[in-house]
């Protein structure tokens, strides 16, 4: 029963941020990431964090989901922190244990890098939490469309992404069914060493791939039957249109950028 599971981390909603044009959100996220890099000190980070948290609060999504995306990269954050802590050279020694010394500069740098990483992840998390995968695909297609002049296959990539999204639940369902069928024939997916387990996956993966190819063929035929001939001359029912709130969002991000630059200039922290 994988049917009810939503794909990705999208939380449906009707907040201002939810209603933003996906292109605005994509560009704003890129801008936000840039701003994180622009910031030279903690005051800037604090401002960015406040901005992101405020955005998240306005969407009604619980803050914990914002930080859930950190789990897979927690190790990298800690590693970066440790690396900077121990190997950053500095003059103000805080602690010395044999050859290992921790300096104030090191501590500052380590914290700086860790916070920067966390902010990067959290800002992009905001995008995926508030934008449906399909809107994201539409946004990407629209943003990359100008590149079609140089033969960049924007439409094809977007089409592939949306078909993949469409078939993930179907294939998960199918995997579940095949797994059950093979278990009924005595297959064992759970025990054994790594090699044995990898081998045990063959009876699952082969039918799954064969099925996926069969589906792909049928889908291609069905698309042909509905006059699909690539992106040329195609229109869309949902037109992406920038609205007032998009301008507002752009202004907010620009204001944030200005503030961070100002903080840099005054060397606050």
């Amino acid at each position, binding site marked *: *029963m994988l049917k009810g599971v939503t794909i990705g981390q999208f939380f449906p909603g009707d907040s201002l941020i939810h209603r933003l044009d996906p292109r605005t959100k994509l560009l704003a996220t890129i801008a936000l990431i840039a701003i994180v890099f622009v910031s030279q000190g903690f005051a800037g980070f604090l401002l960015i964090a406040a901005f992101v948290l405020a955005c998240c609060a306005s969407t009604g999504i619980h803050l914990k989901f914002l930080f859930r995306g950190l789990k897979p990269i927690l190790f990298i954050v800690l590693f970066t922190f440790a690396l900077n802590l121990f190997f950053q050279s500095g003059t103000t020694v805080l602690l010395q244990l044999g050859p290992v010394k921790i300096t104030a500069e090191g501590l500052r740098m380590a914290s700086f890098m860790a916070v920067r990483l966390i902010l990067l992840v959290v800002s992009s998390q905001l995008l995926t939490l508030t934008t449906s995968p399909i809107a994201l695909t539409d946004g990407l297609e629209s943003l990359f469309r100008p590149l079609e002049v140089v033969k960049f296959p924007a439409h094809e990539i977007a089409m592939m992404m949306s078909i993949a999204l469409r078939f993930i639940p179907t294939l998960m369902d199918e995997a579940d069914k095949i797994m059950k069928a093979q278990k*009924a*024939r005595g297959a064992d997916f759970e025990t054994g060493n790594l090699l044995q387990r990898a081998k045990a996956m063959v009876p699952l993966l082969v039918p799954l791939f*064969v099925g996926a190819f069969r589906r792909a063929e049928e889908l291609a035929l069905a698309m042909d039957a509905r006059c699909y001939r690539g992106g040329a001359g195609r229109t869309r029912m949902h037109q992406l249109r920038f609205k007032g709130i998009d301008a507002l969002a752009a202004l907010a991000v620009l204001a944030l950028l200005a503030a961070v630059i100002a903080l840099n200039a005054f060397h606050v922290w």
Partner: protein
Amino acid sequence: MPIEVKNLVHVYMPGTPFEAHALKGVSLAVRDGEFVGIIGHTGSGKSTLISHLNGLEKSEPGAVFVNGMDLGDKGADLIAVRRAVGLVFQYPEYQLFEETVAKDVAFGPSNLKLPAEEIERRVSEAILRVGLDPSVSDKSPFELSGGQKRRVAIAGVLAMQPSILILDEPAAGLDPAGRREMLSLIRNIHDSGTTVVMVSHSMDDVGRCCDRLFVLNRGEIAFSGTPAEVFLHDEALHGMGLDVPECAKLANRLRREGFDIPEGLFREEEVCAAILNHLGKGGKQPC
């Protein structure tokens, strides 16, 4: 009693917004050598039910027994259960994966860790039993026709020599002749001593084959009994999205119109004889 189900409850995704009661206290028993039909439309819980009979779904202790083994018991020997109960899912041809038919059919028996000669013997026997020519053994299962693939998949389960065979919609998607052949194949398997449970939404098919029927509706058993008994409820069944065989419908209809037709007829020849009898032509000519 090969299969005994006592007040089986199954809840999908409990505690989430997707929580759904697939089975709400189902009880049934299958006797040795019986041919039992389980009918219900999509979402009635029949697929969940048969998954339980093979231990693919975990049940509470004391709910599902196969040959006396409690499948809810933590220490239940699932290999023994799967050896006893063969399960053929809907569209089983989509589970084939080996290079050759013979290797695919051998998958089940080799999971049972049987000696090589025994596996080989069982494979060739199973291929014959499903009515395939032995020459297909070395072919790739992907080269075969749809109907043949399905037979290979059934052979793969038969090769485990289960004493109970459960089939989910074995005739789905086949054309009428394919359907007739598939049903006669399953009848043959039953006649050779295997207890059979067939899930279907075709009343025609279960009426033709089964000794006893269980009608599942919204996770509960709505009717059970011989086909003749179940088909009396044609209107209630229609309300559940199920149709009784045309001849049963006609017999029920004629009875309401005042025809003297005994209850429980649904086979064409029986209904024909009853009509002739009523019209005063019975006995004159063989029906």
